[in-house]
């Protein structure tokens, strides 16, 4: 049998150790156990992220204090930072102190603006989150039907178009997509403003007017990824015996596709929506800078230009945390989708 590529999850693949037991009475504890195990599994992941970020600064050649303080720092400032970072302490003590501070919400202070990193992140949160949610909605609305259709009509022209579109989506860099969309819809056709951001609190119309192009840009990769995964998962499932059974029962294709096939394909599709989130965060950084949106992406770019390491570090920890959280929620949702996990 040729090797099967497993769906790569950021988090461990859902265990199926519930299979085979016919313990009707033990439903609740099994479900609770699954939840607890998933939550606990997220802890080492975050620990590794923290350790990595910590070691990155310490193991980079050169003086961490100098990196933190920037090029213009005086020796006195450097010394102050060394003391503040505890650089004189042994490395494991440094790590513990650092983690303790993180736990208390102390992500450090920006070199550029001297404000706490947490404040900076909080200020820039809204545009990014509203953009991300719009993107995810667009993505799911477009990509899942695309994938289902392509799998259903496997080998037809629809399938070919979906597959070609998805390869294109993967291959065209986000900023190129962004500039093409600006050129066409904003500059040539004048449908929407070129750049900028309007808060959703000012009304859904004005928000959409400015957010639709960036959301489309951002979703291009995401759509490609999820359409492909949906197609692959559906093709797998459509080859299963129970789909044949459903057809042998005389069900119509809609019921076969959605009630029987898509429900079973939902787990791998959701998994990729979760892991694809990392892809989207990368896209956010680029898209926001193309469309001049004052969100976390802009914050990142400003931090790069100023070599503001504390901000970059804070952003990594923050986005990784969100990523782990989203994947945790998706993991937990498996329990509702697949009774084999529940019981």
């Amino acid at each position, binding site marked *: 049998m040729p090797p099967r590529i497993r769906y790569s999850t950021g988090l461990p693949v859902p265990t199926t150790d519930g299979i085979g037991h016919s313990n009707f009475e033990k439903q609740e504890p*099994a479900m609770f156990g699954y939840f*607890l195990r998933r939550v606990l599994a997220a802890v080492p992941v975050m620990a590794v992220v923290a350790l990595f970020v910590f070691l990155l600064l310490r193991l980079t050649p050169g003086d961490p204090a100098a990196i933190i303080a920037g090029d213009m720092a005086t020796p006195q400032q450097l010394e102050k930072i060394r003391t503040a970072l505890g650089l004189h302490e042994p490395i494991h003590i440094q790590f513990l102190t650092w983690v303790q501070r993180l736990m208390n919400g102390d992500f450090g202070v920006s070199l550029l603006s001297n404000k706490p990193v947490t404040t900076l992140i909080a200020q820039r949160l809204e545009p990014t989150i509203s953009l991300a949610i719009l993107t995810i909605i667009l993505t799911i609305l477009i990509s899942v039907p695309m994938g289902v259709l392509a799998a259903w009509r*496997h080998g037809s022209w629809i399938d070919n178009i979906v597959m070609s579109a998805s390869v294109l989506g993967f291959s065209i860099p986000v900023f190129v997509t962004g500039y093409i969309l600006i050129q066409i819809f904003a500059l040539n056709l004048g449908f929407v403003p070129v750049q900028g951001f309007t808060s959703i609190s000012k009304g859904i119309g004005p928000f959409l007017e400015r957010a639709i192009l960036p959301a489309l840009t951002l979703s291009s990769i995401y759509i490609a990824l999820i359409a492909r995964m949906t197609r692959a998962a559906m093709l797998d499932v459509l080859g299963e015996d129970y789909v*044949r059974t459903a057809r*042998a029962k*005389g069900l119509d294709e809609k*019921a076969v596709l959605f009630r029987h096939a898509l429900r079973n394909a939902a787990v791998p599709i959701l998994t990729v929506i979760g892991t694809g989130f990392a892809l989207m965060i990368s896209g956010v950084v680029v898209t926001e800078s193309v469309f001049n949106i004052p969100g976390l992406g802009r914050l990142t770019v400003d931090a790069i230009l100023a070599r503001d390491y504390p901000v970059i570090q804070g952003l990594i920890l923050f986005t990784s945390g969100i990523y782990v959280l989203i994947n945790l929620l998706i993991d937990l949702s498996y329990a509702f989708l697949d*009774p*084999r996990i529940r019981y």
Partner: protein
Amino acid sequence: MERSDPILKIEHLVVETTGRRPATILNGISLEIGNGETVCLVGESGSGKSVTSLATIGLLPKSALAARQGRILLEGEDLLTAGSSRLKELRATRMSMIFQEPMTALNPVLTVGRQIEEVLQAHSSLGAQEQRRRVLDMMEHVHLPDVERIYRSYPHQLSGGQRQRIMIAMALILRPKLLIADEPTTALDVTTQKQILKLIRELQDALGTSVLFITHDMGVVADIADRVCVMHHGSIVEEGSTDEILRTPRQDYTRDLLTSVPALMPREPRAEKSGEAILEIIGLGKIYSARSLFRPRQDTVAADQVNLVLRRGRTLGIVGESGSGKSTVARCAMRLIEPTSGSIRIGGEEISHLPRRALHPYRKRIQMIFQDPNRSLNPRLKVGESITEGPINYGVPRPNAVARAKELLELVGLPVDAIDRHPHQFSGGQRQRIAIARALAMEPDVLVADEAVSALDVSVQAQVLDLLDDIQERLGVAILFITHDLRVAAQICDDVAVMQKGRVVEYGPAEHVLRHPQQDYTRELLDAAPGKDWDFPNFRPLSSADLPAESFKR
């Protein structure tokens, strides 16, 4: 038998593969099934019997196969020209199908009650209450226990037999005229198989359904068929009533099929050679414990207090149903898994707890033949490389190992030039011969054959069994033979151990165990063997004199 209008009539059906070079899969077959009749389509793998059934219900994989000629008439209506919406209407109402694997044939994320209900939703306009009532009613009909609970259950919470009952309930709830059953009991244990066959018979009588029953097993044919169609390479080579086919087969192919079916009677006992005990299993136990932080530890006892002795030149069979622990014992003996307790001795030497390095010299003395010859040979290695791998591990110079491999290939009945070919160039039976040659290359004292003929067609199975017999005769190797098939066990074993739930329930010479069983479980197994009343190779039913009296008293 007088047949008025047939329920199903297939006329000159031709099915070909799609693609640029179409190959013929069904070569113009014709058959008829009368009202309330059971017709068995019997044949070996690749004979086209499943394709016939899929073509009938209209579920041929479109991208691979297409019906090119002929007609399939269901009560006079041609299914090949019917539109897809008409076919949907006919399915479940006029014709239904049940499949081989009840585990995979049910949707894992929907409750089984819901899955039966769907049939009513699709084909009737009954209210929800009425639907539910009809479903529960049907579940009673297929003798499911505690129907309210099972209605809410998911497939993975049910046993294989229960799942197949659900499938049958689903298929028959709208009382179709025709039931197509594609190897519905092949994946089940014999005792379950017997119950399911009985259930199909019972419902058929009650509902007047006609059954197209597809099987490879002559025993099942003898038990269930009214008429038989023997298929071979996409054609029906012989057709007749069950009695005609089993007693007076006209075609050589049918005769070959029947003579290959091993008799349920143990063979003549061989002279007891007072060989030394080469493999001793004493008090063997194996417990799998599923540890989990948040659940009580769940122990599964796979083997418990197993005691067996295998002597040089003899064959010891371990028989039992799935989950009885027979494979666990074999794999413990091989030290492929670690036994929890007890001891394993090879030639008197204790090996059960030897570490890897110390075990090395003993490994070559006990070798294994696996069930699936498609997977037990590395597809990337040439046959020669696979056979010589072991001897080279033990320091045999390569040229010597290659020379020996050639001898062994001849011994197992393969051409010497097979040594430079890859496994996929051989058929299943030939691959199993290669696997045997690989095991023999180690010059073992013991061969462990784990369901070694179960994946093979019955005619090939007979050849491989003959080969094992022949090898034992020549080399004096002892064989530990694991099988679920009592016929095979009767054919090859000197001694038989019957296992159930990890324990050996009966153990003794084959003659005793299979002819004069002492334990209820053994009797149950023998009683459940399909076609037990027939002596297939001799084309006659077993006379009562041949029957082991105790076991078949009913």
